[in-house]
C-alpha cells in the first residue's frame, strides 16, 4: 500500500488539467464555474441527485463527475446524501408514475433557494419512453426545472457545462429577486 499511496501523493494528477486542445473546454468550463459558484454561494454548492425513472445510464455519467479525472469537488461542487443539505436537485429519467410522489416530496424537502436541473434526454423530454402508461414524462411536468442538460446520457463534460449555465441563471435570478 505504501508504494501506491506514495505514488498517488507525489505522482502527476490524473485530473484533466490544461491545455491540450481537447481538454481546453473542461478547463474553461471549470474556471468559469468556480467564479460563478463563489459569487453566489461563497465557495460551494451542494447537489442532490434524484433518479426519477432513469435507465441508470445518466447515473453512470453523473458518477463520473466525482472521479479523479473530472473531480467536480475542486470547483466547490459536491453531492449530498439528503435533500435537506442541498441547493440543487439534479434529476434524471422520465418521471415514472411510481416515482412521482417521491420526487415531489424530495423537492419539498429541499430548502429554498433551490434549483432543479433535468439531466438527460428523458428528464428533458421523456426520451424513448414517450407514450407509456407508466411515465408522467419530462421532469418539468412534475416540478419546476431551471435548466435542461440533454444527452443520452449527457457526457460528464456536458454536465459540467450545464452546471455553469445554471450558475449564470441562478446569479441573474438572485440579482432580481
Amino acid at each position: 500500500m505504501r508504494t501506491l499511496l506514495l505514488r498517488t501523493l507525489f505522482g502527476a494528477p490524473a485530473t484533466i488539467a490544461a491545455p491540450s486542445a481537447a481538454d481546453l473546454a473542461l478547463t474553461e468550463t471549470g474556471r468559469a464555474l468556480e467564479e460563478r459558484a463563489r459569487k453566489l454561494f461563497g465557495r460551494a454548492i451542494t447537489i442532490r441527485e434524484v433518479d426519477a425513472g432513469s435507465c441508470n445510464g445518466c447515473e453512470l455519467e453523473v458518477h463520473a463527475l466525482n472521479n479523479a479525472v473530472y473531480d467536480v469537488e475542486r470547483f466547490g461542487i459536491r453531492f449530498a446524501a439528503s435533500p435537506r443539505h442541498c441547493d440543487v436537485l439534479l434529476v434524471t429519467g422520465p418521471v415514472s408514475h411510481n416515482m412521482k410522489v417521491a420526487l415531489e416530496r424530495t423537492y419539498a424537502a429541499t430548502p429554498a433557494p433551490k434549483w432543479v436541473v433535468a439531466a438527460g434526454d428523458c428528464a428533458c423530454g421523456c426520451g424513448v419512453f414517450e407514450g407509456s402508461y407508466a411515465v408522467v414524462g419530462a421532469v418539468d411536468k412534475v416540478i419546476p426545472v431551471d435548466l435542461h442538460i440533454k444527452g443520452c446520457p449527457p457526457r460528464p463534460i456536458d454536465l459540467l457545462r450545464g452546471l455553469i449555465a445554471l450558475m449564470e441563471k441562478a446569479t441573474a435570478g438572485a440579482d432580481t429577486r
Partner: protein
Amino acid sequence: MPKNRVADLLAGRAPRSGHHPWPRYEIDAAGWDAVGQGLAAGVTLLGFWGDVGAVHAALMAPELGGPCIVSLAVRAGTFPSLGRHHPPAIRPERAICDLYGFVASDAPDARPWLDHGAWGLRAPLGSRTSAAPRDPVDYDFRPVHGHGLHQIPVGPVHAGIIEPGHFRFTANGETVARLEARLGYVHKGIDGLLTDCDLERAARIAARVSGDVTVAASFAFARAVEAALGAEVPARAQALRGVMAELERIANHLGDIGAICNDAAFALLHAHTGILRERVLAASDRAFGHRLMMDQIVPGGIARDLDGEGARAILATLDAIAPRFAEIVEEYDETPSLQDRTCTTGIVAPALVAAWGAGGHVGRASGRDFDARRDLPYSPYADMAFKIPVLAAGDVDARVRVRIAEIEVSMVLIRIWLDDLPGGPVRHALPQVAEAREGVAVTEAFRGDLLVWLRVAGARVARCHVRDASVFQWPLLEAAIEKNIVADFPLCNKSFNCSYSGHDL
C-alpha cells in the same frame, strides 16, 4: 423423478413452428404443473413473462437437451402458480398479474409488485381498466416478530447517486434479522412500449432497459431478431460485438470493484479504478462514438465500423491499464483491513444461487458454474476457450475476485479479436419475412445472463420481453444481508450491483 417428468412431457412433442433457435412448446395446465415440480427439482427458470392470453417460461436443464420455452394459454384470467413450487417464480408471477391481470392460482404471494397504484390503470397490458389511485406507501411488508426488533425504512430516494428502491430492514441492534425489498419505482412500461413497435425504435428502447448493460441488451435484442428472421451477421460485426461487450464488462467491473472498496471506506482504490474506468469509456467513445456504446449493436450487425485509430485506442488503453489494474489487485490482496470487511460478509449459499439460477458474479462467487458465453454459446464466443472463474465462498470478497478474474479474461478476448479482425461489411440488411416469427437470445452481461424474447411480424416487433440478470439476483440480496450488520448493507448491495431499471422494466 419430477425432473424427468418435464423431459417426458416435452419428449416427442412438436414445438411451435417459427420459433428460433430454441423450441417453444404449448402445454396444458397439467403439464404446467409438472413444469412447476420440475423447477422445484432443479430445472433452472431462465425467464417467466406474460403475453396476449398466455404465459411463457424459459427453462434450462441438462436432461432437456438445450433450453426451451413452455407456454400456457391463460383460461378465465388464471393459470396455475409456478411460485408455489418454486419461489424464484413468485416475483415474476406478481409482475404478470400487475401487467396482464392474469392471476396465478394458489400463488403464495398475491401482493402487487410493479403496480404501486399510480398508473390510474389496472392490467395495462391486459384488460386496461381504470383504477383509483392508491397511496404509494400502502404496501404490506411481511411482519417480523421478536423481542427488541426495530425497523429501518430506506428509500426509494437513496443517499448515493443510485437508482430508487425501498429497503425495509428489521434489525436487532446492529444485526439485520430480515430485509425485504420493494421495487418497481422505475417501472417504465417497457413491455408495453415494445408492443407493436417498429424495429428501429424497439432496438433503441431495448438499449435503455438498463443503461449499464446497454451493449449486452442490444446484443441480445439483435440476436433474437436475427434468430427469428434467419438473418446473417457479417464476421467483422460479430467480432466487434464481442469487443464492445467485453469493454462494457471491464468498465462496469472496474466501477464496481472501486465502489465496493469505497463502501468499505478504502477510497484510494475507488479513485484508481475510477481513473481506469474513465480511460475505458474514453477509448470506447473514440472507437465507437459513444462512451457506453449505446445503440451500436443493431439487428443485422453494428451501427458503425471501427477504424484503425479506434482499434489502436482500445489496444493502447488495455496496455496502459493492465499494469495499473495489477497494482490495484495487489493492493486489494495486501490490505487486511479491507478484507476484514469483505471476507465472510454477505454470504449467499450455493443452494440458493442454484435454485434461483442466479447468474454473473452472484452465481459464480457461490459455486454456480454458468456463463452464457460458454454454456449457451454464441458468436463470437462459440469457438473461444477462456477461463470462467468460479469460487465457493459466496461472500463479498468472492464477488470481487470473480470480477477481477473476468476483467483479465475480457482483456485477453479483446486483444484476440482486434489482432485478427476480419474485413468486410459490418451490417447486412434483414431478410423480409411476412409471417410472424419468434426469437430468443441470451447474452452474458457484466452482471449475468440477459434474456430477450420477441415476436416480429414484418418490420415490427409485435411483443418483446427483456429479462435482466437482476430479476433472479435481487431476492438473494435479502438472504445475503441476513445476520450481517446494517452498516454492511451498502457493501453487500454494491457487491451484487443489481439493476433497478432492468428489474422494474
